[in-house]
């Protein structure tokens, strides 16, 4: 899906640009989050990046209140689309059928209590921001990481951005679930320096129940990546009660050892952190795992460590706990 600006230039919908990230690829990186996703993971912590279109987020704590401000109500062309808590702060924006997506409320809100998720950005605009930290990329072997959502939903733009980075000599890492047509993947990853991808579960049915999508295409794409000669970083979010059983870890290990011949840079087992609750609320969405209580650190930490030891000793794979170890590219 390729978006264009009012002037007809190709652009992407970007939810956020995070500077100084140190966990998604080597060195200090600038991470660009693309909007739109092909999966619906129960534990998703970036719900603002799921829907492919522009969205409004509402932050009542930043609102001055209807009585003291109320600028949003004045510009909204519809009725009852913006709800306030009495005369106090904004409570929600009903982006239903009646909303014309004019986004005027977000434009005028002085304190960004109503904010836009999915700003349109062109390649030159992004490159300007990416270039700002170039001296730190050079110092640390860092670069830019394209993430999301699912970056490959906007694969045409991602391809252009990868090309621009390559010409500028900036290292590009693509973090993708690879749940996409193979040709989209090939188009983008041929110019990327590094791929980070997930194996969330080995059983297609369980995978579907956890992420809303089967894993056949993902695993096939990972094998294809291997055939392209790319060594990815594999990640598994370890969510106790969902995919953290030893059987799943073992079948994932076998897949990597047998199908990929163990040719990966690293396999990072990431402890689950319940993040994003506030974001769900700001979007008026229900957090699918709102009732889930993650186990105590004293419980999951030894488990992850045991898996790491097991994977290393029994399968000879470069497993790591967390994402804080330097990846030798």
């Amino acid at each position, binding site marked *: 899906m390729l978006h264009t600006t009012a002037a007809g230039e190709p652009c992407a919908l970007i939810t956020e640009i995070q*500077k100084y990230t140190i966990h998604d690829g080597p060195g200090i990186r600038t991470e660009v989050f693309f909007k739109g996703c092909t999966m619906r993971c129960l534990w998703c912590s970036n719900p603002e990046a799921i829907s492919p279109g522009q969205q409004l987020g509402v932050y009542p704590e930043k609102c001055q209140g209807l009585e003291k401000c109320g600028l949003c109500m004045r510009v909204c062309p519809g009725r009852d689309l913006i709800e306030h808590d009495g005369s106090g702060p904004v409570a929600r924006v009903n982006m239903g059928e009646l909303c014309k997506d004019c986004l005027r409320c977000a434009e005028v809100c002085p304190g960004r209590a109503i904010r836009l998720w999915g700003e349109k950005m062109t390649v030159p605009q992004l490159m300007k921001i990416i270039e700002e930290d170039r001296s730190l990329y050079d110092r640390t072997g860092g670069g830019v990481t394209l993430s999301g959502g699912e970056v490959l939903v906007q694969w045409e733009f991602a391809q252009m951005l990868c090309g621009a980075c390559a010409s500028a000599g900036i290292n590009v890492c693509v973090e993708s679930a690879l749940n996409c047509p193979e040709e989209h993947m090939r188009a983008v990853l041929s110019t990327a320096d590094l791929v980070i991808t997930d194996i969330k579960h080995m059983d297609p049915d369980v995978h579907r129940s956890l992420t809303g999508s089967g894993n056949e295409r993902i695993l096939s794409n990972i094998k294809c990546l291997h055939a392209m000669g790319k060594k990815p970083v594999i990640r598994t979010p370890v969510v106790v009660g969902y995919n953290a059983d030893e059987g799943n870890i073992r079948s994932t290990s076998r897949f990597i050892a047998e199908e990929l011949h163990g040719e990966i840079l690293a396999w990072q087992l990431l402890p689950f952190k319940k993040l994003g609750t506030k974001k769900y609320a700001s979007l008026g969405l229900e957090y699918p795992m709102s009732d889930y209580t993650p186990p105590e650190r004293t419980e999951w930490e030894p488990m992850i460590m045991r898996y790491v030891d097991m994977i290393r000793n029994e399968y000879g794979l470069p497993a790591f706990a967390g994402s804080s170890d330097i990846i030798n590219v």
Partner: protein
Amino acid sequence: MSERLTLTSEENVRLNRDAYKNAFLIDTKPREIEPWDKEWGVAISGNTPEPSPFPRINRILSVTKKTTNGFVSPERAMLVTQAYKEHPGEPQELKCARGIANVLLNTPIYIYDDELIVGCLGCDKKGAPVHPEFGLNWVVDEMRNGLMDYSEQRTHDYFSYTPRTQEELESIRGFWDGCTVQDYTDSLVTEELVKGSHDGKGVFFADAYVFCGAGHLGIEQERLMRLGFGGIADLIDEYESKLDMSKPGDIEKSVFYKAAGIVNDAASAHIKRYAALAREMASAEKNPARQEELLQIASNCEWISVNPPRTFWEALQLLHFANAMILIESSGHSVSYGRFDQYLYPFFRRDIDTGTSTRAAIQELIENFYIKIWDMNKLRNHVLIKTFGNGGIGGPAMTVGGILPDGSDGTNELTFMALDAHAHVRIPNPWLAVRMHSGTPRELKVKIANTIRLGTGEPKIFNDDVTIPSMLSSGIELEDARNYHVVGCVEPDVSGKEYGWHDCGHMNIARVLELAINDGRCFNCGPSCPRWAKCGATGSCLGLRTGSLETMTSFDQVLQAYDEQMKYWCDRLVGYLNAVDIAHMAVRPLPLLSILMDNCVESGKDVVLGGTKYNFSGPQGIGIGTTGDGLATIKQLVFDEKKITGKELLDAVRANWEGYEPLYAYVNSDRVHHYGNDDDYADELTKFAMDTWCKHIEKRPAAHGGFFQPGAYSVTVNVAHGRNQWASVDGRKAFEPVSDCMGAVHTRLGSHDVRGPLAILRSVTKLDHARATNGTLLNWKFAPGSVSGETGREALIALIEEYIHRKGMHSQFTVADQETLIAAQREPDNYRDLLVRVAGYSAYFVELDRALQDDIIGRTSLSFD
């Protein structure tokens, strides 16, 4: 858990670095000799029971930590008074010498269990002496009003005292009435100087040295180690013998030499008293090992009372005595320890090479020495402690690392051991500074990063590549500049050669902007002001009439008004500070300090009269970010975009933004150019705000000699200045803190810097650090996740390297969980050992004033995991 502690696989240890909260997973067990890449965990701070590998150190630490407050000790005051009374007609210099000599010869002394380094301030652990020469009334008044001991108004840094102590101090009150530095200052300052001062409307504070000595210096350690007190005595004799008493100048010098001789003899005698006490204790000691230690302490003290030290132990002991005696002489803040790893290195090298001592034994001595610094204390009034939460003597900085006078890198084993010693004691003393430069070795960078990640806030980083050129611009010679050390919180200084009067005052430049755009009037001008009758009511105003934003037609007029207003207030600040300086010159010469400084004996002149090589006076500019954002807001909204009129903006601020909520939210949003985001629009105006301050301070003559040097840091007085100030145009509500040091603005509505640490770094380094010759400071605050693990360590190192490369002068780091800080506010008893960076120094978080805690919590947390 015990199984994890015995992790043997190097790989397992490495794999677990992500677990920053569970330090036991990493091999953080302290060792006597630590590897250069030792990890201490992330954000652990002082929350660990036995940090040192040495049982002795852990024992001393536990006793010292338990002693949370000491007693007011009247002996010093009584002994000084006695000496002054016995010599009423003598010159001030001699009276001062007789006073301090009487104290050194007769004040009580103590040696505690286990300790290897001895010496105190003439009072028990954490007790504090009284210095009536600077001002006695406030001490007695605090006692009379119940404000010295624990009360609701004083929940930390409180002092116990006996009724007898109060009686004794009351008894000498009359004697000192009218004779103190405070009294002398009061007689010099005019209403014009007072109106905007700490005693008036608080545009500036000039009272730092009204109640105490100036401090903020280091002695010439290398010279003391070379000469010993015996050598200094010879030097005094040599110069005294050359005098020609027919010359009036030489008569004055003879007074100085007589005073110098008296204090030098007293210093030797004071150290000998410790030798005698140690011998006496040894004879009563049952434990043969301790008995031997006490005899060694006695022998060390006996030798160094006159002679230059021979071993590391003796050298460290002499250093401790010298600084303690200076603190007994004058209650100055930030008496610092100079380049610790340089002047002690020859002793270390010789001990190791000759087998006299071991690295482990020397490590233990350093750790003991750190805790000895923490033993000493100082009286402060109940108001001052609200903004200064560190307690103790305050400001005992110690510098390691950096280049040598010949330009080569000076990193050595002691550099590493000094940092390890901090990790082994985790107390707020000394205030460690590490000098870095483009050639700092990788191993030291790792050691620094790992110490920072521990989360105690130590050490601070100084950049040689900008500090040295800055000092050269003040006329300091190249070799001296390369040999600088850091004094107290922030200030670069030449130890033993500089009487810099660093941190003598500070001005809120955000207040200057307020007066500049409001025709010299405060925003909240009205009958509730205590000065109303003689100011507003008469049609007058506080500042210079520089016009109102309502009628200004171009932004240049705003800048010009700010410039003129700044000159007006700098004139008054400089005037007040020079009055205090003159009072010190007249009332309180410091003969003991003088003999430990370069050139005073040679010139026959006391240090307070300008006897040493370099002299300056260094006040700070406060609220740089607040002023920069204020200027940017005016320029953008009133002149460039014409979104509002000048009158509307002034009305909004006068109303404390009430009724102007949309504008208030807008001004605080990212729609307005803000300093700290690598946005030239705001950064250039912030640079102008700071440069204008520097321009009107730099190179003005200082009373004791030399000239004024501007500084650009607030430490914590941004909170106090904020309390004094109504709302401001940058979106700050009334009485909120102004921005800290060189940091960006954070108001109740949010942080103005929203683009991450690298944007801050670039904004801050656009300011001219070298011009602020009295020092600058940037506080960083990291969430533990963003510096944890290998990747976190390497990113932190890269960030520091970039700051050095971009010519930032000075940085300090807080590594703490926002949640932990908030929890500590709620349940202080569970977080007693949570040591955090404040600004310029570290302090126990739970002992800070609530407003200061909030200010630290409010600083933008750089979290990216």
